């Protein structure tokens, strides 16, 4: 017997979306020249027209940020700066429902996640970093601390407002001013954040937001008036940025791709592990750089885990992201859906066995059913490349050492999961895994106090905690 869920749609009346948006430069919204549409990926409805920033707009934003840095922000005491950040955190909390609905409409993620994860965490990031602003002298290792100046920040579409918070909050707390570019397909919450800056009476030019595509991002990266680049996105673009800044003295942090192993040992609590596997790969449609996209099962429990996993996956509710019951929302864009479709096709052609949860997908919009591949080997593309979708590759191992060897057999090193009831084994495995974030008997947990970032080709530097803050200070780290 199964229970049907009555629809429980969140109301969208709380947001008012303008027909067209400009850029936020020097404390004001300025009209854009060219525009492109932003759509709701769950319905393909055009939500608004977003401005495409070219050289003139990026120049103006950098100029405004520089002026704000030299005339206001760098002269203000940390205590006063911090109070602006506290204000921003509070206004974000006050307007959290509005942010959540807007994020879900523009991104396609379930309202349950934007409401309970993205927006509260974004506000928490501002609250946490607000308290750092007047304590910077304690953030380093006995070295003098000073802001870089103007930070250019480029963020992805998977957690639009949360990634903005990860970038803007530490930058401002450390005393930098910023030019931020949200992702092409998810600009709306960043533009709403600009309104928050106005309500908080943040001095003009401290935060500047220019919208656009990769060409706008390149203008920011290459701009001579920018002192620090912070980027979250693909490893491919991360390498382009590393090459582009090589001749300059720009400081860079990169949060890039991942292909995390989620390792289930034979002594794990199986039901909890199954929940963790589901959370690890299906949270946010798998659009997560640290997603547990490679499941490593100890051979003697593999069958049992897979059986339970399939039962659990069949209960994932896929559909309208605005429905409060929805677990898995829309794929963010047609391009991303094509990429997932293409990569999973190689899973079939290279000999892995596909199983998808039986679910009905909406007729309009971009959708992909929760899927696992069994019988995956380490050479398969679906075991090596980041799929960035709700697709799990399952591999097996016999000994703990084999699990570690397989987990580390990747150029990435962002995160990893361990499931075991044995403390010493967890600590051993966490010390052996070459990844920046290890979740043991949990997965996909984030907190502003907790440093996040990758080893190897997953990036440079950390975000969150004291370690993340130091990336926005000269002298707290090495040149």
């Amino acid at each position, binding site marked *: 017997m199964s229970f049907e869920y009555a629809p429980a749609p969140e109301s969208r009346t709380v947001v008012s979306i303008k027909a067209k948006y400009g850029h936020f430069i020097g404390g004001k919204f300025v009209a854009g020249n060219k525009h492109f549409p932003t759509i709701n990926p769950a319905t393909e409805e055009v939500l608004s027209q977003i401005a495409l920033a070219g050289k003139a707009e990026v120049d103006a934003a950098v100029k405004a940020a520089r002026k704000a840095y030299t005339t206001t922000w760098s002269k203000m005491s940390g205590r006063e700066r911090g109070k602006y950040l506290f204000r921003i955190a509070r206004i974000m909390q006050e307007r959290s429902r509005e942010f959540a609905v807007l994020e879900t409409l523009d991104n396609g993620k379930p309202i349950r996640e934007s409401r309970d994860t993205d927006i509260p965490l974004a506000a928490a990031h501002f609250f946490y970093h607000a308290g750092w602003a007047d304590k910077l002298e304690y953030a380093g290792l006995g070295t003098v601390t000073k802001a870089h100046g103007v930070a250019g920040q480029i963020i992805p579409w998977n957690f639009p407002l949360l990634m903005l918070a990860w970038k803007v909050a530490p930058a401002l707390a450390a005393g930098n001013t910023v030019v931020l570019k949200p992702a092409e397909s998810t600009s709306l919450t960043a533009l709403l954040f600009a309104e928050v800056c106005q309500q908080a009476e943040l001095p003009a030019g401290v935060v500047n937001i220019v919208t656009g595509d990769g060409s706008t991002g390149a203008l920011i990266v290459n701009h001579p008036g920018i002192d620090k680049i912070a980027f979250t996105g693909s490893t491919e673009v991360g390498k382009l940025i590393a090459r582009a800044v090589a001749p300059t003295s720009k400081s860079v942090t990169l949060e890039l791709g991942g292909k995390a192993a989620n390792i289930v040992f034979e002594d794990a609590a199986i039901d909890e592990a199954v929940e963790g596997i589901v959370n690890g790969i299906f949270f946010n449609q798998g659009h997560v750089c640290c997603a547990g996209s490679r499941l490593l099962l100890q051979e003697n429990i593999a069958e049992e885990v897979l059986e339970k996993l399939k039962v659990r996956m069949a209960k994932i509710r896929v559909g309208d992201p605005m429905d409060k019951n929805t677990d898995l929302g829309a794929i963010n864009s047609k391009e991303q859906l094509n990429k997932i479709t293409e990569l999973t096709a190689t899973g079939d052609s290279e000999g892995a066995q596909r199983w998808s949860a039986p679910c009905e997908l909406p007729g309009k919009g971009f959708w992909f059913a929760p899927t696992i591949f069994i019988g995956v080997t380490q050479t398969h593309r679906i075991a090596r490349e980041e799929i960035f979708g709700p697709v799990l590759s399952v591999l097996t191992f016999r000994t703990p050492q084999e699990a570690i060897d397989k987990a580390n057999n990747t150029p990435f090193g962002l995160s990893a999961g361990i499931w075991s009831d044995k403390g010493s084994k967890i600590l051993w495995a966490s010390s052996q895994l070459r990844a920046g974030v*290890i979740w*043991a008997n949990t997965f996909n947990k984030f907190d502003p106090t*907790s440093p996040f970032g990758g080893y190897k080709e997953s990036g440079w530097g950390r975000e969150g905690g004291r*370690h993340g803050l130091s990336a926005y200070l000269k002298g707290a780290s090495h040149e």
Partner: protein
Amino acid sequence: MSNRIDVKKTYKLYINGVFPRTESGRTYEVKNAKGDFIANPCLASRKDLKDAVVAARAAQPGWNKATAYNKGQILYRIAEMLEGRSAQFVDEICAVTGVTKTAAVKEVNESVDRLVWYAGWSDKISSLTGALNPVAGPYYNFTIPESMGVIAAIAPESPSLLGLIDAISPIIVGGNTVVVLASNKAPLSAMSFAEVLATSDVPAGVINILTGKKEEIAPWMASHMDIDGFDISGLNKKMHTDIKVAGAENLKRIYSFKAAEPGRILAFLENKTVWHPIGI
């Protein structure tokens, strides 16, 4: 004075705890300040670098596993061995660079003291830079620095011994292994230092020393896919851009430093954050 002919030393490379000649068969002349011939050290090749990286990679897990106390003691042991042979280093530095004996003594003494300073960092860096993070939930959450892997380094032209020690020590103290290119004009103290290392309980492969041309070796180090980080302090600034562009292929961590400072150790450490639920 006796008519005895002295026995001169053949300067070779130091890879995996032994002293091989360069596989390339190439050498170059080192002369003293007056222009007289002193020695024919190896002109290391790309293959020598590859061999050194293989050795460094193989040695890394074992060295990383050594306790901080043990690593500190081994660094201190290097200082002990260097102190005992300081006269030889003073002579070598004087002969090659032409500096006064006072200056050479100062450099060697400073080298010994610098090693002792780094030795002491071994069991302190984690407590100073690690963190217990107060996350908003029932989780035990900590961040600790961890070794990065295999790090390459270009030692400065001078001071040839102290510069080499500043290149090597901060890299290995955190559990990394190193492949370092010594001063080109004054490589002799580097190779004699390898003899100190060989008698200092430093496991084979943890420190590998090459001699040769920076312009040749540095780009190979930059593009080597099994090198995780690169200290280019000893490299001409003009080469930095090309090195960083080549290093981007595997997102190598590439830095240069001006002084001996804790940041030099931290630069080649990764921070690892671990989460675990708290509950019954």
